[in-house]
């Protein structure tokens, strides 16, 4: 990127600029300095003096070409739309199956599985307070549960985003189902959506299950297992979304995410893996806030940094390794409980930023998320928003349509500088693993979260309906709450008990013993043993408990 002053061959440019500055000054009076959420100063006007295009090939290039700033594929959204991947999961495996089939009937091909919070915490249904079961996601503990989730669905043609923190028990259960159905593992496609244990340790604490050193090893084992057995599976999704939701600015979230990806790549290389064997399967996941241009610049800068970094630092030669593939989710933090229908407008602006940022898949939030778990009607509007933007507003006709905007290009350069500064701080702290172990990253995020809230409190940052433009809410608009009926969860608990009684206990014990032993044997691949145990009939909770016993219960480092 270029930071040199630009000499323009435009006669009269300077004189016209001076005249505008003068007239602008007279109209605006005292200038108030503006900065975006990442702290980048935003000027009132951008011109060829800020970005001239003379470094077009080095800084932008063509879509699908180095440095990929304009997009990772030659045809981008004009050729193939992003995947509409809505998060689903509520109640029992049967409930999930019903909702999944409705989505597939409506033409969906990419789905996600969101498990219940009890699953996220590493427990089976019979280990937690039954009041909470299935209220935020599907209760999936056994191979039978997983089979029910995908009953009547061909798992060889479906791409599943599995919200499955390490040790990746849900994928293991899916592979056990594949075995049961005679589907070869190389046909199973999707993503381990919650593989980024560093982001769990730092930000989304509920997914953090196993103490740091064990987590570090299991992730590399998982990447290695996928490289050997699952050519259609993305074992890594590095999640900037957690950092940003926890309070990181957009530039911090991008910088911390890239630093995390560098750490994972280094750990794989230290294990003797070839970068081109695993980098093509790295994916990313970002929050899209309502800071419109800032988000677009964040994504464009991230793509450029990643492309350069994997080539120069890791010597990646396969162009697939250079592609910064990412999923975007509109930010729930920007949504308000006051006048909740306003959230449809917010989600639309956020989604547009993500689309112009060049994402590969998109989740749009439902407008009622601030009230409760989204209702089906609100979820439908969220999907329609994507269809409207694509097919009515024609946002996908032109690739990277904001490329070449003086503002967007200068902002992309400025954001790159901010992002690289964050990455340098992490590097100085000894890399991402060390920087989270010491709490340095946590305090960076905590400071930013507080600074943003101060701006809302002081009114410097307007939030419509909250600190400005307040209005009475029409409470009659609120949808009735839907929660799983207690007797349905009781039946699920009975199914779990029946499953546990009916399985071959010898095989299960052998599988869990082998898993425990492999945790203590560095040369073993722990994840292989996780899959073996699941195939032998072990439950999700039993597998996590075994590894917690051997490797330590995960306790995040929380700072206030």
């Amino acid at each position: 990127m270029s930071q040199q002053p630009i000499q323009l061959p435009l006669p009269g440019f300077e004189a016209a600029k001076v005249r505008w500055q003068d007239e602008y000054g007279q109209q605006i009076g005292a200038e108030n300095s503006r900065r975006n959420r990442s702290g980048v100063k935003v000027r009132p006007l951008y011109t060829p003096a800020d970005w001239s295009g003379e470094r077009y090939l080095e800084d932008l290039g063509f879509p699908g070409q180095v440095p990929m700033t304009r997009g990772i594929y030659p045809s981008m959204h004009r050729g193939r739309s992003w995947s509409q991947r809505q998060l689903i999961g509520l109640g029992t495996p049967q409930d999930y199956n019903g909702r999944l089939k409705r989505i597939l009937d409506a033409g969906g091909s990419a789905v996600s599985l969101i498990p219940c919070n009890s699953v996220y915490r590493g427990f089976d249904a019979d280990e937690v307070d039954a009041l909470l079961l299935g209220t935020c996601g599907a209760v999936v503990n056994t191979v039978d549960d997983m089979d029910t989730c995908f009953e009547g669905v061909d798992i060889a043609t479906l791409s599943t985003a599995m919200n499955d923190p390490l040790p990746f028990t849900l994928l293991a259960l899916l592979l056990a189902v594949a075995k049961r159905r005679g589907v070869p593992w190389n046909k199973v496609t999707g993503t381990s959506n919650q593989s980024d244990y560093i982001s769990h340790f730092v930000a989304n604490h509920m997914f953090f299950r196993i103490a740091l050193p064990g987590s570090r090893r299991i992730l590399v084992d998982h990447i290695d297992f996928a490289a050997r057995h699952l050519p259609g599976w993305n074992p890594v999704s590095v999640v900037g979304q957690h950092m940003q939701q926890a309070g990181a600015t957009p530039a911090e979230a991008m910088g911390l995410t890239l630093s995390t990806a560098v750490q994972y790549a280094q750990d794989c290389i230290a294990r003797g893996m070839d970068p081109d064997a695993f980098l093509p399967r790295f994916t990313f996941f970002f929050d899209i806030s309502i800071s419109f241009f800032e988000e677009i610049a964040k994504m464009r800068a991230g793509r450029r940094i990643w492309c350069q970094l994997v080539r120069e630092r890791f010597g990646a030669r396969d162009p697939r390794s250079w592609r910064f593939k990412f999923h975007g989710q509109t930010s729930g933090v920007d949504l308000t409980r006051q006048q909740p229908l306003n959230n449809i407008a917010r989600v639309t602006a956020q989604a547009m930023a993500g689309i112009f940022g060049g994402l590969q898949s998109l989740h749009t939030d439902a407008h009622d998320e601030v009230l409760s778990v989204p209702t089906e009607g609100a979820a439908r509007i969220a999907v329609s928003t994507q269809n409207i933007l694509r097919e009515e507003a024609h946002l996908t006709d032109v690739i990277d349509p904001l490329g070449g905007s003086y503002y967007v290009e200068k902002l992309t350069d400025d954001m790159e500088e901010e992002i690289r500064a964050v990455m340098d701080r992490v590097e100085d702290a000894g890399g991402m693993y060390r920087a989270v172990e010491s709490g340095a990253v946590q305090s960076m995020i905590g400071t930013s979260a507080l600074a943003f809230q101060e701006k809302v409190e002081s009114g410097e940052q307007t939030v419509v309906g909250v600190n400005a433009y307040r209005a009475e809410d029409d409470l009659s608009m609120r949808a009735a709450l839907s929660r799983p009926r207690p007797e349905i969860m009781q039946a699920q608990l009975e199914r779990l008990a029946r499953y546990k009684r009916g399985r071959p206990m010898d095989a299960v014990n052998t599988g869990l013993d082998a898993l425990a032993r492999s945790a203590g044997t560095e040369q073993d691949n722990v994840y292989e043993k996780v899959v073996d145990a699941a195939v032998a009939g072990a439950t999700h909770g039993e597998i996590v408990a075994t590894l917690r016993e051997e490797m330590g219960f995960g306790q995040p480092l929380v700072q206030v």
Partner: protein
Amino acid sequence: MAERSEPPRVLVTKLGLDGHDRGSRVVAAFLRDAGMEVIYTNPWQEIAAVVQLALQEDVDVIGISSLATDHLLVPKLTRALSEAGLGHVRVVVGGIVPDEDESRLLEAGVSHVFHPGSTRDEIITEIDGLARQSRERRMS
């Protein structure tokens, strides 16, 4: 906040399974900056552990943050507090709490539910008043 010899003592925590803690961290920092004594814990506390901590730390107010559905456990907490002789301790809940749940929580003895958009000043004033109430109830 009015001058007084002993600042309010507030336990800020989360019950159950969810771990989204941006809200609880920001609120804890606001209360601390307002001069209160804040005791902060990791999420996923057991009810018995919260009661124990409230007793040990001699708190006036417990703030429970709930972004998923963990507030469903709060009626069990208020009951356990009463049984432990801590009926004077005021309990507030903040986060995503649907209307129907809110009325159930208030019936179960929760003093106040803060929804998204609550301001720093509202939260500080409310908790300060509740801490006063808690001390008066303990005296009587």
